[in-house]
């Protein structure tokens, strides 16, 4: 189990390989990568603010909850903060299980909780505006699945 909050970029493929290599006994690895989308071609950059004292703790709590629900062999969360350009990778999650069902469910769960319960906030900056991304009801509703 590993949680990293960092300003710099990461290499999702290298992280996936390292994670897979270390996940001894795993039959199934699921990874998720989140990428900055330039919705209408106007995005200059995204700013991600976070709450340093709380972030690591919150992510570890979400991971612990996933591991209590599914028989995971290992899990990984990486989340960036600071300034990100369009097409840059924001974060990734990986889960290793014996079987595919638990690896999929745990990764999906981690993403849902991370989205609405980890203290990150996104601001989209264009040449004309700088707007905080609003939370979506659909993200809050997604938590009810679990």
């Amino acid at each position, binding site marked *: 189990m590993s949680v990293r909050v960092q300003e710099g970029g990461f290499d999702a493929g290298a992280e996936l390989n390292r994670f897979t290599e270390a996940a001894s006994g795993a039959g199934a690895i699921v990874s998720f990568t989140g990428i900055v989308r330039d919705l209408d071609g106007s995005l200059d950059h995204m700013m991600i603010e976070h709450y340093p004292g709380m972030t690591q703790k919150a992510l570890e709590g979400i991971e612990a909850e996933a591991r209590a629900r599914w028989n995971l062999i290992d899990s990984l969360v990486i989340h960036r903060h600071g300034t990100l350009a369009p097409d840059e990778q924001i974060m990734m999650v990986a889960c290793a299980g014996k079987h595919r069902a638990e690896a999929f469910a745990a990764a999906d769960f981690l993403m849902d909780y991370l989205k609405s319960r980890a203290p990150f906030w*996104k601001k989209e900056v264009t040449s004309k505006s700088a707007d905080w991304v609003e939370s979506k009801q659909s993200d809050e509703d997604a938590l009810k699945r679990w």
Partner: protein
Amino acid sequence: MDVLYFAWVRERIGLPKERVETSAATVAELVAELTAREERYALAFADLSALRVAVDQELADFEAPLAGVKEVAFFPPMTGG
């Protein structure tokens, strides 16, 4: 106690963190005290349904007690991932 603000709450209040001497018993009482101080606080706290609160770095609600608490943070709903 330390009071922290994030995202647009930080922008409206105009600072990321301040030291507050208070005898408020709950988060809600602290919000009432701050709101009474200045317009910028009143603006930030105008709609509590749009705010989230963490007490000592754990998500909490506005009825959470403040006895022994070192740090309270106010922010909008999270939008990570």
